């Protein structure tokens, strides 16, 4: 059983198995579920994610009209073939956006680790799928490995925007995705941990400041960049780059930053982008309330 990333990596490397396997073993021990039950339940999550990506790529709009349609725009742009940042990177971004547009439209999604950050893990998974052609089992393992890292963050720090800001939500999701991309691409458990650390370091301090308190602006675009961040960090770790600050210490830093973050920047819609003139105007228009509140 593991309590932090160092123990997770040590367990996987000493037993010479993938991180996803350690997660399965711990789940069996903690919950009494059989291996088959765990894989089947994760497969159900995978199906929901797949449907959400498809639905978002077909085009959805939220009831407020604040978000929707961007995944479609990005896919059309990719098809033209003139993109600068790369096909798979942008594909991951568009699929992350697709999922969060479905979430904002009150559609069915799978929280990974939360609904506001639900785009990053599936977005990157369904993009790397195009490149690596994984088996269904490998895709389920992708989710288990993401889950193993998320499990450590949730228990040692936080995955709630209200408690720790967006760094705890999209930051955690990005790190989880990066670690899983490394595994599915054939990297080692240590490289997964490096990818997580590199990713989260670049999300530290990110505040949760949703306009009108809605999981739309800037959440959808933060998922986009969360996916991009995960893809790049995974490539960096696979190239052999390591984080000077160990993964568990980065997670601890994130936790302490969250604790010192003012309440206005923790999902209260009182600060940051929510408090900009345009943010306030949108809020007043959507809820029919006065601008001075």
């Amino acid at each position, binding site marked *: 059983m593991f309590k932090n990333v160092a123990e997770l990596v040590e367990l996987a490397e000493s037993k010479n198995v993938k991180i996803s396997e350690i*997660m399965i073993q*711990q*789940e069996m021990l*903690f*919950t*009494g579920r059989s291996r088959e039950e*765990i894989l089947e*339940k*994760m497969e*159900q*999550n995978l199906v*929901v994610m797949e449907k959400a990506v498809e639905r978002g790529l077909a085009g959805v709009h*939220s009831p407020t009209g604040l978000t929707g349609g961007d995944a479609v725009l990005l896919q059309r742009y990719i098809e033209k073939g003139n993109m600068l940042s790369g096909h798979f990177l942008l594909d991951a971004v568009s699929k992350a956006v697709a999922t969060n547009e*479905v*979430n*904002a439209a*009150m*559609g*069915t*999604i*799978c*929280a*990974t*680790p*939360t*609904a*506001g950050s*639900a785009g990053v*893990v599936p977005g990157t998974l369904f993009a790397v799928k195009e490149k690596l052609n994984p088996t269904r089992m490998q895709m389920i393992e992708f*989710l*288990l490995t*993401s*889950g*193993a890292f*998320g*499990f450590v963050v*949730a*228990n040692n720090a*936080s*995955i*709630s*925007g*209200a*408690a720790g800001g967006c760094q*705890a939500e999209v930051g955690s999701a990005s790190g*989880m995705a990066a670690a899983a991309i490394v595994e599915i691409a054939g990297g080692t458990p240590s490289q997964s941990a490096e990818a997580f650390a590199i990713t989260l370091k670049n999300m530290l301090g990110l505040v949760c400041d*949703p306009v*009108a*308190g*809605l*999981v*739309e602006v800037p959440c959808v675009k933060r998922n986009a960049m969360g996916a991009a961040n995960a893809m790049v960090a995974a490539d960096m770790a696979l190239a052999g780059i390591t984080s000077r600050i160990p993964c568990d210490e980065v997670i601890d830093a994130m936790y302490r930053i969250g604790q010192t973050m003012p*309440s206005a920047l*923790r*999902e*209260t*819609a*009182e600060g940051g982008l929510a408090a900009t003139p345009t943010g306030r105007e949108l809020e007043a228009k*959507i*809820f029919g309330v006065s601008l001075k509140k």
Partner: protein
Amino acid sequence: MKYKSVFDIIGPIMIGPSSSHTAGAAKIGRVARNLYGKEPKNIVISLYGSFAKTYRGHGTDVALVGGLLDFDTFDERIPESLNISKDKGMTVEFIEEDAITEHPNTVKISIQDDENQPFELVGISIGGGKIEIVELNGFELKLSGNYPAILVVHNDRYGSIAGVTNVLMKYAVNIGHMEVSRKEVGQIALMAIEVDQDLDEKILKEIESLPHIIRVTKMVD
């Protein structure tokens, strides 16, 4: 550890847009419904912290009422729950509280159907759709809602706890978590017991018939 399962992280499958403000809220509402034991009629919902500030935008209101209607987090009727409750003749009042609570996502649900049997539950949504019930009818407790649980209202007397655990032992029921809370020595107290399997009505009846036991209710995941 607050989180015990990988499915707390990858999951739940839910209706958007927020795991803490929508899925977590629906779960708290459903636990309240479960503990109350029937469809409530007159409900007052007090919201604190981030819940109070953003409940409309996140659909916290529709999610809480959806839970009180016994809808699960992925039930596609959740967006319509306010209308559904109205059609059923239920009244729901929302109060935005200013008080600072220990956790930013806190809600108090009071059901005011019968003055003689007040029902009041305080729940918190701790992230990723996971919740804790921290207060029930004035008794402090810490229930995750992830396992079946029984709540035993009893008189604070020696032997009442042993009586309950003896019955559970007789039926080979394992206790995962247990706590006892009382407001004053020798007065009414509450046992909250999380168990590994769903309990038969027969077992609950047997516990209720023990000396010093006032009422037994069950909460199923």
